[in-house]
């Protein structure tokens, strides 16, 4: 009996949380077009999120390219399909692996950072102080951060994809003697706009959900400093789950368009 009540409560909490997150997103769309526009803060956030995540994304992308090629190579050699390596790696990285893994890395780095920063500002009354000073804290803190993540994530994904292909090309060059020019020629011949555009479009949505969840968790942080840790932690978990959900929806919708 108690267990069933707990499950009911958990479902209720989940639905309430989902509704509040949706309302928070709705408020973002209302506020984003409302002056005053915090352009300087937006640029600062783009720098913070884009530039400071770049090294992490590049290193991760390079290792993904290396590992994917090293792991796949023996199997392709076994079937005499070694020459398909650039096509396979290019399509898998650009369509799926690049955007999803880079979004997950950003969920870990950016969503937790935003959750902790805004959470700490909430519990130390800095957000209240902003409101009392006549500045709309939602506009200043939330809108700028969500816009910055939405804009920066596709750029990070593009850089990450390129460096992953570079890593793969390096392995092919060292192990198979394939030149970099030939490798990238084969990759770009294998790719079409149908691979690139849906992946880029879904990266915008990944960026949006990462910013939205980070801001929501931080902005509604409660219960003192323990709440800040919880906000950062749940921001990562929720943002990562939403990245997979958005990815599923994106693949599902793209599939319908290709069918048509």
């Amino acid at each position: 009996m108690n267990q069933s009540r707990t499950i009911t409560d958990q479902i209720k909490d989940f639905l309430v949380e989902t509704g509040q997150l949706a309302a928070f997103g709705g408020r973002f769309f209302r506020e984003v077009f409302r002056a005053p526009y915090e352009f300087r803060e937006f640029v600062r956030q783009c720098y913070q999120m884009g530039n400071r995540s770049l090294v992490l994304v590049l290193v991760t992308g390079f290792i993904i390219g290396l590992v994917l090629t090293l792991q796949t190579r023996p199997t392709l050699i076994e079937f005499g399909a070694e020459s398909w390596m650039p096509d396979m790696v290019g399509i898998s990285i650009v369509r799926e692996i690049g955007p999803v893994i880079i979004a997950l890395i950003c969920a870990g780095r950016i969503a937790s950072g935003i959750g902790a920063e805004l959470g700490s500002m909430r519990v130390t009354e800095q957000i209240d102080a902003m409101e009392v000073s006549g500045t709309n804290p939602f506009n200043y803190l939330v809108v700028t951060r969500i816009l910055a993540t939405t804009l920066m994530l596709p750029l990070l994904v593009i850089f990450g994809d390129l460096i992953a292909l570079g890593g793969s090309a390096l392995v092919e060059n060292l192990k198979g003697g394939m030149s970099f020019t030939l490798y990238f020629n084969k990759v770009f011949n294998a790719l079409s706009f149908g691979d690139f555009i849906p992946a880029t479009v879904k990266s915008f949505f990944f960026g949006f959900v990462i910013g939205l969840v980070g801001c929501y968790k931080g902005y509604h942080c409660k219960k003192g400093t323990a709440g800040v840790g919880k906000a950062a932690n749940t921001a990562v978990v929720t943002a990562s789950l939403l990245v997979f959900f958005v990815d599923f929806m994106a693949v599902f919708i793209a599939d319908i368009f290709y069918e048509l």
Partner: protein
Amino acid sequence: MKPKAAHTEVISPSGQRKEVIRIRDLKKSFGENHVLRGFDLTLYEGENLVVMGKSGSGKSVMIKCLVGLMEGDEGSVEVLGQPISSLDQHDLDQLRSDIGFLFQGSALYDSMTVRENLEFPMRRHREKLGHVKDTLPLVMEALENVGLAHTLDLMPAELSGGMKRRVALARTLILQPKLILYDEPTSGLDPITSKEIIELMREIQHKYGTSSLIITHDVDCARVISERILLLVDGVNYAEGSYRELSGSTDPKIEVFFKK
């Protein structure tokens, strides 16, 4: 000094002074927790009124209702002649520019320098300051008032607790408010720093002629700065009078506040 019943009309000490804050029958609950149960308060122009009460007695909730950070469930709150609950966001922001709020934990913005902290409230209220282009002289004047002109380019993390409180006080002064609300201005400070802050509050009051509402547990602060003290017990006014009147009371509920 006899305890004053709740809902009793407060008469101006001079019979002439203008009301700056007028709270009538304010009620606020959080679920089953009835924090304010019909609280009344009047602050007159140029007056220093201290509100004392135990933790959880509703002091901070009351002060947040005064600046629109919270809304009461019932009752009326008027600040500088304007009813808070019926103001739209623009009018509320304009009113807030006439109210300085010193938060309990200082609430300085961690990511900004001292200068940026002081400039922040000016962003939305340039017209009040005559559309000044160079804000540095105003920032320097506010910092000189609190004796911290040398901290201009420091980050809040580089300041001691007492310095943070003084910078926060400078930030409340930057818009030249008519009314200053102090939420536990000496909490967490050592006795010497507390005395410095209390002295600073007195100097500011004399220099600018502001009205002040001070929430505190600190008996020394109440003794030095108050013209009138209001005791809040269980969410209602319990007693009101000068420090001399209340500290001489034999009522156990009043005595407990003034025991050393």
